[in-house]
């Protein structure tokens, strides 16, 4: 069942559906689509019981703003009493002792949580092949990947297994799978959404955001999950607007920048054509379009992989087999416990990034790599701040290719990293970005168009995304 939340609310009002019947339909789709391996756990009984409770609230007129919405959650976000595996063997049996702030807020707004979705281990990957629990498949072509690392959440929305889903985006892990599967994926501004209860990968980059069928549904979810949380010191004390009100259905008076560096030779011609069609639609809608330059674009992947792996090597030091997670058997002393638990518990890509991160932070290399990376991060952020002096948002492709074949890049880490070439910049600069479907290539694989906005201005990129959806591309 692929229904927008607006449609669901209408069905609830007319009596054509109940929260219970909607939840049952999604559970049916999740069951019949098991082969995609989108979910790592499904909460069938709990979800139905919760839906019945919400139906009673609807009758009594006391239901929250998300009544009727069924949400899937990436398995890197804590839901009390349920496993949170991060797609890793090292956390295979880990049960969350508390709820993440985003979960608390969704539940308080009367959303139903249907299950936890598959992902690249610790959100490290661009294909959802790096999961200890098997890869997630693209519904349109099962030999292909759905992108990553939030591939399970993207597929759950695409295949009608939920209304919306939560993912996380450290270098493109919401936007790129949204692009590959053909749904909407929003990475909010760094600090917009609390990370409390999110298992850390790279703390200065990680951000939680929604997948949805429409920009409007993404806006609805963002409004509920966004805002200051005293349990996350990096969550920003910036007012959260009513994002749905910003969706005016037009783009008159909006100035859109086209960063020329994002349209280079690496770009697939079909994707270029798709995105250019989107730009034409914006012009026809009354937006002003002008070319801008982000001169340090070519350095984003290098800076990103230095800084993100450094933060990861530090964050993942906590998996030592002592207090939680996998512990190797028959260890004689502490060092052996640490070393064997980690070596047996982590997968290859996670080890590779811990190694790279440890190297760039190690004595003698810190200045050459880590500090250099931080300086280049400043230059990249400055590029955006400069561009945003003359434009309201930027339009680019989300990914240089459409969904690739499983196995195609798994043995070539650098090629895999380069598939994030248009997305890591937003995480380096801390700005929000959204990917929306924008036609298909010759094989029918979805093309994603990315809109990047100013810090804390999700409203504008949602407005532009919402307008483009009406253009029927």
């Amino acid at each position, binding site marked *: 069942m692929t229904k927008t939340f607006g449609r669901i609310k209408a069905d609830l009002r007319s009596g054509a559906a109940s929260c219970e019947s909607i939840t049952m339909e999604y559970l049916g789709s999740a069951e019949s689509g098991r082969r995609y391996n989108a979910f790592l756990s499904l909460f069938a009984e709990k979800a139905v019981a919760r839906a019945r409770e919400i139906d009673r609230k609807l009758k009594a007129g006391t239901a929250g703003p998300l009544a009727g919405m069924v949400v899937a959650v990436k398995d890197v976000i804590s839901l009390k009493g349920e496993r949170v595996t991060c797609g890793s063997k090292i956390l295979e*049996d880990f049960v969350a002792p508390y709820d993440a702030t985003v979960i608390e807020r969704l539940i308080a707004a009367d959303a139903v949580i249907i299950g936890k979705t598959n992902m690249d281990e610790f959100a490290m990957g661009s294909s959802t092949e790096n999961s200890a629990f098997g890869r997630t498949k693209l519904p349109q072509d099962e030999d292909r990947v759905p992108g990553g690392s939030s591939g399970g959440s993207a597929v759950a929305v695409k295949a009608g297994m939920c209304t919306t889903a939560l993912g996380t985006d450290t270098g493109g892990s919401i936007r790129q799978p949204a692009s590959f599967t053909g749904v909407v994926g929003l990475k909010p501004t760094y600090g917009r959404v609390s990370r409390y209860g999110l298992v850390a990968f790279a703390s200065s980059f990680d951000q939680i955001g929604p997948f949805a069928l429409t920009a409007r549904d993404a806006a609805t979810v963002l409004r509920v999950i966004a805002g200051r949380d005293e349990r996350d*010191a990096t969550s920003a004390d910036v007012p959260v607007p009513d994002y749905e009100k910003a969706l005016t259905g037009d783009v008159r008076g909006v100035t859109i920048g086209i960063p020329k560096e994002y349209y280079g030779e690496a770009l697939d011609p079909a994707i270029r054509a798709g995105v250019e069609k989107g730009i034409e639609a914006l012009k026809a809608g009354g937006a002003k379009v002008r070319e801008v330059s982000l001169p340090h674009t070519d350095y984003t992947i290098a800076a990103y992989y230095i800084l993100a792996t450094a933060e990861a090597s530090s964050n993942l030091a906590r998996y030592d087999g002592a207090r939680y997670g996998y*512990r190797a058997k028959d260890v004689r002393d502490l060092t052996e416990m640490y070393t064997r638990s*980690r070596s047996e518990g982590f997968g290859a890509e996670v080890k590779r990034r811990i*190694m790279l991160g*440890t190297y760039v932070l190690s004595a003698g290399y810190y200045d050459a790599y880590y*500090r250099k990376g931080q300086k280049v991060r*400043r230059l990249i952020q400055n590029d955006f701040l400069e561009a945003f002096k003359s434009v309201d948002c930027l339009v680019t492709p989300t990914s240089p290719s459409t969904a690739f074949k499983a196995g195609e890049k798994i043995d070539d880490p650098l090629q895999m990293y380069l598939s994030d070439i248009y997305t890591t910049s937003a995480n380096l600069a801390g700005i929000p970005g959204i990917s929306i479907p924008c036609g298909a290539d010759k094989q029918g694989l979805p093309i994603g168009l990315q809109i990047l906005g100013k810090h804390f201005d999700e409203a504008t990129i949602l407005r532009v995304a919402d307008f483009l959806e009406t253009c029927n591309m």
Partner: protein
Amino acid sequence: MVTVKDVEHIAKLARLEFSEEEKQKFTHQLNRILEYVEKLNQLDTATVEPLSHVIDLQNRMRDDVVRPGLTAEEALMNAPAKTDKFFKVPKTVKGEEGG
């Protein structure tokens, strides 16, 4: 250039261990990635301030009051091994048997 010996050293720092075959593969892959990130040296950043935090944030103090946190049982619920109210790990101090 990272050598197999460097990889062994980094692995030790990261508390990871690898087979000989994995060490070879990692050495090769790390070198490819490091070669790629070398491009950052094309940029003159002598006068650039490093960016460690992307939005303006100030430290916010709160009153130092006791608030409920995890109970000992909750904190121990995922422990691979425990005894009473403690995490249990292999012996850390070398000494006499049973000491």
